[in-house]
């Protein structure tokens, strides 16, 4: 199986996980939240300086339906991570090509 085909399958799985399976995720607080609650320091939490209201808490507030909003947020996240990773991957490789060309000229 080519890497391209395998990558496509993994991407589909990622979209499935983010767009559908995430809707069935446990709503219980995670390890850190649980500790923060129990040890009474959860209230110290502050909003980060950059706060995009659009996708806060993994929910696309544009959409009227909460489930759709969560699904859409997951899919958006998958695509953004993919795009950003591919970008720096390409940049890191391009510099190698550039220095190869420089070496060839000297």
């Amino acid at each position, binding site marked *: 199986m080519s890497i391209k085909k395998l990558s496509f399958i993994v991407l589909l799985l990622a979209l499935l996980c983010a767009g559908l*399976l995430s809707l069935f995720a446990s709503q219980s607080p995670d390890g850190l939240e649980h500790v*923060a609650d129990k040890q009474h320091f959860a209230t110290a939490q502050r909003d980060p300086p950059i706060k995009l209201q659009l996708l806060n808490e*993994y929910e696309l507030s544009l959409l009227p339906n909460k489930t759709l909003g969560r699904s859409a947020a997951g899919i958006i996240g998958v695509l953004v991570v993919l795009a950003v990773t591919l970008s720096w991957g390409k940049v*890191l490789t391009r510099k190698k090509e550039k220095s190869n060309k420089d070496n060839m000229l000297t």
Partner: protein
Amino acid sequence: MHIPDGFLSPEVWIPSAAISLAVSAWASRQVRVELEPEKIPLMGVMGAFVFAAQMINFPVAGGTSGHLVGALLLAVLLGPHAAVLIMATVLTVQCLLFQDGGLTALGANILNMGIVPAYGGWVIYASLGKLLPASKSARQLAIALSAWLGVFFGSLLAGLELGLSGIVSTGTALLAMGSVHALIGLGEAAISVMVVNFLYKMRPDLLLKQSRI
């Protein structure tokens, strides 16, 4: 395990950010030297998969939940340097787009969920690879153990950061974070083994040469 803003003191989050930045810069130099361009699509989709998997919290004992970290899994498939960069990408997107994890705490989160489980887990995995005979069960054991240890030690570091910040006593933080993540780590171990098994079936050559056992 995503630490929000407000939990860590500047004495803790500033050095954490500096360390994460320095290590990430070094990791990107290693990736630039080692990266095979054909692997870039795989890096992208594995990053996307880790992001997606992190959305699926599973219940662990006592009204708590956990989720996959994914750093060791990435390291086994793509090498620890790429794993660190991919985890940093996932954590940064989570922070900026979804407010999952604080911005000042981003360095600490990258340290706990990226650098420690990727490099620490990788060292354990590669060492076991040399010690154990080459077999599927040996590989699975090595993955499970290094995945678990990576999550466990990452959580202890988080506990230490909280303790040093003065928001909770260090002893309490270490005990609480360690015990919860000892359980969450079991999920990490199981999922890591399953995912690597699946990818190994499709393309056995994908496992790095040094790690092949």
